């Protein structure tokens, strides 16, 4: 039942995260994970890296809160969220979300919910570094829509 939230500049070992999720319980039948990588285009093309800023303290609180939200909605056992900050180069890992559950539907839903929520609710800001300069990434309508999706079935929700 232990969750794990880490915001750090150091790279992480996704394999170790998977291993931790496997050891949750004898009732664990499903592990869904997501890994985000620095790709060569975003708002601009020729991206060579990212700079990620965050709000220390608040970030961790928000993520723990999001895991709590996931736990209320789905039958999940353990959740692990790692988000890197600082300067990252092409192909590097940015974020890892892993969820264990008895059931695959819950593991998938909670993992995708957490990823969508990280994009719209956690205080991280991304700057793209390209050959032609650097610029802050704008929040996407598509991300807002994906984030809002999770609230549609809760009419009483804020």
């Amino acid at each position, binding site marked *: 039942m232990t969750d794990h939230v880490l915001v750090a500049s150091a790279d992480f070992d996704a394999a170790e995260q998977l291993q931790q999720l496997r050891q949750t319980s004898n009732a664990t039948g499903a592990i869904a994970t997501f890994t*985000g990588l620095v790709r060569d285009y975003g708002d601009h093309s020729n991206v060579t890296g990212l700079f*990620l*800023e*965050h*709000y220390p*303290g*608040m970030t961790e*609180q928000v993520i723990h809160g999001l895991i709590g939200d996931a736990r209320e909605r789905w039958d999940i056992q353990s959740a692990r969220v790692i*988000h890197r900050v600082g300067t990252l180069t092409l192909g590097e890992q*940015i*974020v890892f979300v892993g969820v264990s559950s008895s059931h695959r539907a819950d593991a998938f839903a909670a993992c995708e919910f957490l*990823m*969508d929520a*990280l*994009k*719209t*609710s*956690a*205080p*991280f*800001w*991304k*700057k793209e570094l390209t050959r032609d300069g650097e610029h*802050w*990434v*704008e*929040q996407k309508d598509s*991300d807002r829509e994906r984030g809002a999706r999770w609230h549609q079935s809760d009419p009483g929700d804020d």
Partner: protein
Amino acid sequence: MTDVTITVHYFARLREQLGTEQETVTIPANLTLAELKQRLAERGAPWQLLTGERPVLAAVNQAMAKNATPLQDRDEVAFFPPVTGG
């Protein structure tokens, strides 16, 4: 009315445009977040960005906060653009 002292943090694009990462501000007690933004914007360029067209989000004591939130002594306020992590 007693004055109170708060810290204000700025992040990302806003931090760069304001040239400020963090400052300590003394304000009258019970000023709202909206009134704080207004006061800071009155400093002139580039501070009017806080009340400009581009959305500026705010947190008080590390929780998302609305314009009507009243500020207390030692509050930690933060202003930032919409988030783009993940």
